[in-house]
């Protein structure tokens, strides 16, 4: 895949607060995108935040190619994300993008997407993309509570959505790995794409391995550059230490030392 990485000031055209901890940034580019693929991410420059020295990585959440727009789904964690949550319509946000590899195109139609926390972010773009390949995935999303669920209708456009909440206020109670969908003796999926906290991804990977289902995960990692030069973001794979920002963020779990 050949595409050019850009450093660009995008314009915030919407900052939608989804709930206390999550918001959506819709960004307008001036120039047509080079290829954008699901699983890829951006490195955002947080201005005027004294405790945020480095850029912050965020997955591309959904795209609107004709209008040269895409969205980020961001969870407020620390100072950097808090600053970004204050961006207003018309403000500029400097991004390096697109970065990283992408989820692979499946060779089957029996696809499951599993996301938890802000790990749901890349899955909407992935679902959009799968629809273009005539695939309607099953989408299993985990939230803390009813209050924290968001964009269910959005995901539902592209697949069949199931949810879990920690407190049972919506969908099944418990963690995504405990959802009844995954408890059957034989699972109906031939491919799982997963993104979320490490522990969750490891559990899903275990289930996938047990059922001999191919599984790809999008890893989080502390990054300094995001484009392959600092070697800070490595993960051990069958090829040694690989860079999550270049060889990843998406890895087939077969290749990881999990």
């Amino acid at each position: 895949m050949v595409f050019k990485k850009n450093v660009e000031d995008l314009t915030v055209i919407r900052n939608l607060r989804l709930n206390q901890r999550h918001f959506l940034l819709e960004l307008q580019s001036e120039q047509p995108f080079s290829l954008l693929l699901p699983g890829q991410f951006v490195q955002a420059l947080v201005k005027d935040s004294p405790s945020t020295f480095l850029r912050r990585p965020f997955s591309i959440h959904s795209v609107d190619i004709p209008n040269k727009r895409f969205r980020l789904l961001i969870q407020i964690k620390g100072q950097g994300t808090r600053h970004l949550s204050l961006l207003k319509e018309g403000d500029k946000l400097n991004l390096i993008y697109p970065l990283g590899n992408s989820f692979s195109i499946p060779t089957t139609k029996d696809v499951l997407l599993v996301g938890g926390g802000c790990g749901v972010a890349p899955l909407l773009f992935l679902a959009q993309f799968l629809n273009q390949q005539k695939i309607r995935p099953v989408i299993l999303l985990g939230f803390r509570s009813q209050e924290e669920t968001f964009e269910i209708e959005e995901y539902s456009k592209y697949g069949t959505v199931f949810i879990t909440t920690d407190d049972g206020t919506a969908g099944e109670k418990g963690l995504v790995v405990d959802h009844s969908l995954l408890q059957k003796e034989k699972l109906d999926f031939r491919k799982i794409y997963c993104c979320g906290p490490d522990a969750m991804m490891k559990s899903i990977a275990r289930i996938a391995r047990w059922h001999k289902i191919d599984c790809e995960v999008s890893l989080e990692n502390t990054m300094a550059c995001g484009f392959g030069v600092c070697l800070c973001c490595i993960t051990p794979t069958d090829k040694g230490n690989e860079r999550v920002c270049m060889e990843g963020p998406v890895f087939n779990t077969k290749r990881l030392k999990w």
Partner: protein
Amino acid sequence: MMRDLSVDIAGLTFRNPVTTASGTFGYGEEFLDFLDPGQLGAIFVKAVTAKNRDGNAYPRMAETTGGMLNSVGLQNKGVDHFCREIYPKVKKFDTYIIVNVSGSTVEEYVEVAEQINELEKVPAIELNISCPNVKLGGMAFGTVPAMATEVTAAVRKVYKKVLMVKLSPNVTHITDIAKAVVEGGADVITLINTLLGMAIDAERRRPVLSTITGGLSGPAIKPVALRMVWQVHKAVAVPVIGLGGIMNATDAIEFILAGASAIQVGTANFIDPQASIKIVEGIREYLERHKIASIKELVGALRTE
């Protein structure tokens, strides 16, 4: 009026004083989407060691106020791989390619330097003597003058081109180390490498880095770096290449005034991959504004009277 940005570094003429620091610029290729290396004075590529090294375990990075800690640990595929796979690509760049040479023993430095000596398009190496000396139980070559002289002299014997030595700032008397490497035959001194630091996650009560301590870089260290460049520039006759927290052209000018004949852009590359070429532009504007014909006039031109 045309402003002359070129500088002479031990016989090499850099088209401008702006270069990129080892370990922050990969092998240059990763930057081709962002800039044309031909606009830079030189590029210093990632450390090369004799054999493949996996580097340290994850996590390798911690953000700090105005800087970052890293504990990458010289991850690279070894000098053979460099010569075979990387060199054919980087030699096409229209700028000087300088290889950062690291090792754990004198023999390893010598071995790597000998092989790099054969690469026609590499006019210089930068000996990174901040690495632990495994034989002497982890003490760094760069902290004991006699050892600094020894490793420099050993490499000097086999390396026929421009020999740069990059110093560690974690020492009491930086000028002693600088004099020691000049005695060993260094043509150029680069400084500074990272300061040894540490970060702790108070909530988890754990060190952030897998290695507990790591190297501090970024604007936080600029005052220390400037001070050392100033001290070393006054203490030795060879040219100095300065770095440590340079983020913009003003920072670069400060290092040049303190005595650096050229500068390296390091951590800034992560925040703005185009920082280095913007610095070239900013230096040109500075010369314009101050009506200075050549950047060479500014080297060490700090007014202290």
